[in-house]
């Protein structure tokens, strides 16, 4: 592969970069081949068989639960066969993430991060080893006002000469004011306030300081944390920006995990911005068999779903709702049938009926 530092000095073309990636990735995986652990087919088959067994038990259990609770209204499955559906109690553990308004930088329990007002961790990362800096970058969503900051945790083993620390930012990002040096739990943290970075770019570019007059350089990317709390753009799922995004007051974020027996089917963090009526997501592994919605208003009494084909959910769906404390938001979990691995477009929308009989429709995002 061509060494990046030998790339054309000004601006490599897309074709250059694509070639670099194609060749570089192949060479990298070839070199890593020796590190792969052998896969034991018998273990995989045994685990698969246990999963099948658990899934069958779950299906039986699910049917029993559906029969035990009252049928909610006489509503029909949109585009389906008119199956009557039941409300099931939700069985996933749910925790809320409070809106972030004020923050506290912390270094403890091998973690470096920023704690939000409620005591929940808004964004954090593990501190790995003692010789590498940890970098946290955060700011408001693109186009919004507010400070952008890079926070750099200096390696534990290093004690830079006073005033020698210099945090480099990428081109087009300008520093605002002097960098602050904060001691947090005995560790040196450098806070640099800066202008918003260009789309897709992480602002941090590197770190230098001296120890006893001897220069130490940490080039980018170091350990860079670009996650946010939330979903979609707020969580940076599109990779549109290279930093974590603070939640604004009034935003409700819910994190959840779905477990069936000891099988973890994943979940996510779903964020409803202030003023937004709701959001709907389809997810869970390859089968897209679970939908998650956050809706505002009185808790839903009935929920119907619309699929991409008339027969998509003909087998029926089950749903459950959980109100989020101190908000007018309800988390709605919908277990779908008839889904496959063809993608997230299988669920087009849901319609719910609130306590006053009002009907609302929410399209999948």
């Amino acid at each position, binding site marked *: 592969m061509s060494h990046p530092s030998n790339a054309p000095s000004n601006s490599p073309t897309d074709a250059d970069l694509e070639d670099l990636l194609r060749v570089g990735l192949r060479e990298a995986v070839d070199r890593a081949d020796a590190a792969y652990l052998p*896969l034991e087919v018998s273990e995989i088959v045994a685990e698969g068989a246990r999963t099948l067994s658990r899934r069958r038990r779950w299906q039986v259990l699910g049917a029993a639960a559906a029969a035990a609770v009252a049928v909610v209204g006489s509503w029909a499955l949109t585009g389906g066969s008119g199956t009557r559906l039941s409300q099931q109690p939700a069985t996933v553990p749910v925790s809320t993430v409070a809106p972030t308004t004020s923050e506290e930088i912390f270094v403890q329990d091998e973690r470096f991060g920023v704690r939000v007002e409620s005591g929940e961790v808004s964004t954090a990362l593990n501190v790995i080893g003692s010789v590498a800096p940890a970098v946290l970058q955060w700011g408001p969503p693109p186009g919004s006002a507010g400070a952008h900051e890079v926070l750099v945790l200096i390696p534990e083993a290093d004690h830079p000469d006073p005033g020698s620390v210099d945090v480099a930012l990428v081109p087009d990002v300008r520093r605002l004011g002097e960098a602050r040096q904060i001691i947090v739990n005995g560790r040196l943290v450098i806070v640099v306030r800066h202008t918003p970075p260009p789309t897709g770019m992480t602002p941090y570019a590197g770190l230098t300081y001296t120890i006893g007059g001897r220069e130490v350089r940490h080039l980018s990317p170091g350990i860079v944390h670009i996650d946010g709390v939330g979903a979609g753009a707020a969580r940076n799922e599109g990779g549109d920006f290279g930093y974590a995004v603070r939640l604004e007051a009034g935003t409700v974020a819910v994190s959840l995990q779905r477990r069936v027996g000891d099988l973890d089917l994943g979940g996510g963090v779903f964020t409803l911005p202030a003023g937004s009526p709701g959001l709907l997501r389809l997810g869970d592994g390859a089968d897209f068999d679970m939908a998650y919605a956050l809706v505002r208003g009185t808790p839903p009494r009935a929920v119907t779903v619309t699929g991409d084909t008339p027969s998509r959910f003909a087998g029926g769906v089950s749903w459950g709702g959980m109100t989020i404390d101190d908000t007018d938001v309800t988390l709605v979990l919908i277990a779908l049938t008839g889904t496959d691995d063809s993608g997230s477009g299988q669920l087009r929308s849901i319609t719910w009926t609130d306590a006053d009989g009002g009907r609302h429709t929410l399209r999948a995002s």
Partner: protein
Amino acid sequence: MTPQDRERDASFAQFVEVASPGLLRTAWLLTGSSEAAHELVQATLVKAYVRWPQIRSESAMAYCRRILANERTDRWRRTRREVPVAEVDTRSADRSDTATSDDRDEVVRLLRGLPEQQRRVVVLRYYCDLSEDTVADTLGISVGTVKSSASRALAALRAQLVVQEGEIR
């Protein structure tokens, strides 16, 4: 065990033998560690085993690749509040050279600095050599999103290369 079960297990084992090297390599690029790749491929293959009777042999690899991407997404979402997205780069003046070959590979380090979706698009597009349509289908996103993610990834790589070049110069 019925004869059907035995037949199922035999065909699945044959598939694992053929497909696992490619899946491990893709997973390694997605996760950045051989241990995580191993765990990810195991989880993927367990899911494939569960659905094996419904999977057509010619689409089994694509099916597993789709699970791999989704599984990665799920795991990332579950843990990403505390997950570093890039490996350590400690080129201090006096450090001993304890970096692995992974750390030394600049393309991989650049890849690890990318946001999740861009990284997935880059791996599927440029390592797996999938078309934009197939990448979109695999990730459950639009072709436009694939194009924009790839474009942003290339722009980010370009910017990092320029920054590195400037620092080295």
